[in-house]
C-alpha cells in the first residue's frame, strides 16, 4: 500500500508537469501518433500488394504490431524513470534517492509516469479488440493465455530495465543500453518469421524481445506450443533473477561520483 501511495504521488506530480507544459505535451503526443499512424499505414499499404507477409494475413500482422505497441507504450507509461536514471548517477543525485526510506530500485523505475503514453494505451487496446473481433472465432482460453503471456513479457521488460539501471551505475553511460533494448524490441513490430533463424534465436534467448511480443500474439492466434509457453516462463524467471543480482552488485559498486 505504501508503494502504491508513493507511485500515486509521483504520478500526480508527473501529470502536473505534463499539464503545465501543454505545447510540449501536444507535440510529444502528436509525434507518437504520427509514428504509430505511419507504421500502421505501412502495414496496410503492404497488404495492397500481397495477401501474406511471412505467412501471416493482414489482421494477424497487425496483431503483432499492436502487441508490440501495447508492450512498448505500456512500459514507457510506467517506467519512464529509467531514462533519467543515468543523469542522476552522473550528477550524484542518486544519493538523495538512496537516503529515502524507500526501495531505491522501485523509485528509480517508476519515478516518472508518462501521462501521454497512458492515454495512448486506450486506442491501442481498442484496435487490438477490433482486430481480435476480425480474427474470430478466438477461444476465450487464447485470450487468457494472451494476457498471461503479456504479464510474463512485462516481467522480462522490468528485468531488462533493472539491468540497464545497474549498467549505468557501473559505466556512467546508461542511454546506450536502454536505447539498444528499444531498437531490439522494435524488431517485434513484425512477425519473427521475417528474420532468418539465427536472428530469431538471438532475439528469443539472448535478448528475448520475441518472448515479450510474439509469444502473446501467437498464443492469441492459437499457434504457440506448450513448450514455448514454458520456455517463456523460464526465461522470465532467469532474467528477473539475474537482474536483481546485477542490481545489488551494482549498488555495492556505486561510488557517489559528482555528488
Amino acid at each position: 500500500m505504501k508503494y502504491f501511495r508513493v507511485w500515486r504521488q509521483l504520478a500526480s506530480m508527473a501529470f502536473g508537469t505534463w499539464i503545465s507544459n501543454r505545447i510540449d505535451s501536444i507535440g510529444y503526443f502528436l509525434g507518437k501518433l504520427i509514428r504509430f499512424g505511419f507504421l500502421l499505414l505501412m502495414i496496410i499499404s503492404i497488404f495492397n500488394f500481397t495477401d501474406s507477409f511471412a505467412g501471416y494475413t493482414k489482421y494477424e500482422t497487425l496483431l503483432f504490431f499492436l502487441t508490440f505497441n501495447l508492450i512498448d507504450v505500456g512500459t514507457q507509461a510506467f517506467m519512464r524513470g529509467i531514462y533519467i536514471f543515468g543523469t542522476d548517477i552522473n550528477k550524484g543525485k542518486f544519493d538523495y534517492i538512496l537516503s529515502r526510506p524507500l526501495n531505491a530500485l522501485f523509485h528509480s523505475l517508476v519515478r516518472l509516469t508518462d501521462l501521454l503514453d497512458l492515454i495512448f494505451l486506450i486506442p491501442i487496446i481498442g484496435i487490438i479488440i477490433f482486430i481480435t473481433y476480425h480474427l474470430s472465432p478466438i477461444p476465450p482460453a487464447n485470450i487468457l493465455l494472451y494476457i498471461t503471456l503479456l504479464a510474463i513479457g512485462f516481467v522480462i521488460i522490468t528485468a531488462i530495465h533493472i539491468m540497464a539501471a545497474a549498467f549505468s551505475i557501473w559505466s556512467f553511460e546508461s542511454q546506450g543500453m536502454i536505447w539498444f533494448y528499444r531498437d531490439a524490441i522494435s524488431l517485434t513490430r513484425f512477425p519473427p518469421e521475417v528474420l532468418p533463424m539465427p536472428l530469431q534465436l538471438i532475439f528469443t534467448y539472448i535478448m528475448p524481445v520475441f518472448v515479450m511480443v510474439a509469444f502473446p500474439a501467437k498464443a492469441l492466434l492459437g499457434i504457440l506450443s506448450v513448450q514455448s509457453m514454458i520456455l517463456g516462463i523460464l526465461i522470465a524467471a532467469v532474467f528477473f533473477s539475474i537482474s536483481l543480482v546485477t542490481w545489488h552488485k551494482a549498488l555495492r559498486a556505486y561510488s557517489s561520483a559528482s555528488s
Partner: protein
Amino acid sequence: MKKYFWAFKMSVSREFTYRLNLAMSIFRSTTVLLLLYFVWLRLSEATGSFAGYSAQELSTYVFLVFFIGAFTINPASDKTASEINEGLFSLYLVKPVHHFLFSYFRGLGNIAVRISYTIIELITISFILNITILTPSQLSMWVLALIAILLAHLLQFLMTYTTSLIAFWSREANGPRFLFDWFSEFASGNFFPLTIVGGFYAVLMVLPFAYTAFAPIMIYLERVDAGGAIKIIGIQIIWIAVTSFIARMMWKRGLKRYTGEGI
C-alpha cells in the same frame, strides 16, 4: 574558418569520449537496418519484386536510406532549442562566431563519425549477407544523385535548425521538435518507399521531407530520367531558399524577443 574547424574537431572528440554509447549506437543502427532489409526481402522473395521494385532495388533503397540518414541528420541542431531556453545561447552573442555556422560544423563532427561507421557497417553487412547494391548505369545520374544528396543534407539541416528556433517564442520547443523529427522520419521515406502508400504519395511529395531521402534515392536508382532528376534538384533548391528565408526571419525576430532567461 579556424574556429568552426575547432567546433567540428571538438564534436568528433566528444563522440569518442563516450565509446560505449557509440558502440551501442552502432548495434542499434545495425538492428534497424537488418529489420528493414529482411522486411523487404521477405516481401519480394516470392516473385523477385514488390510494389514495382525489384528485390535488388529494395535492398539498395534500404542501404541508401541508412547512408543518406547518416549524412543528413545533424544531431547538434537538437541543442539549439535547449541552448535558447536555458540562456546558454547568450554566450554565442558575445563570441565572434555565427551561431548558424557554429551549429552546422558542430553537427558535422557527429555526422563525420556516424558516416564513417555507417559505411563500414553497410559494407560488412552487404558482404556477410551477400547483398548486391545497385549503382547508376550512367555517369550523369551518379553526378545528379550526388548533388541531390548534398542538397538533402543542407535542406535537412535548415529544417531542423528552423524548427529549433521556435524556442525563441516558447520554452516548450522539444515537443514540436519531437513531432517534427518523427514526421520527417516517415515522410522522407526512411522506413518505406513512399510510392507504396497509394494516394497519400501525392500529398507527401508536396512537402519538403521527401526531398531529403526518397527523391535522391529515386535519382540514384534511375527511376527518374535526367529531366526528372533536374526537376527534383530544382525543387530541393526552392525548399532550401524557402527554409533559409524562414530561418532568417525567425532569427531576426527571435533575437528581439530573446531575454537570456535562465543564464
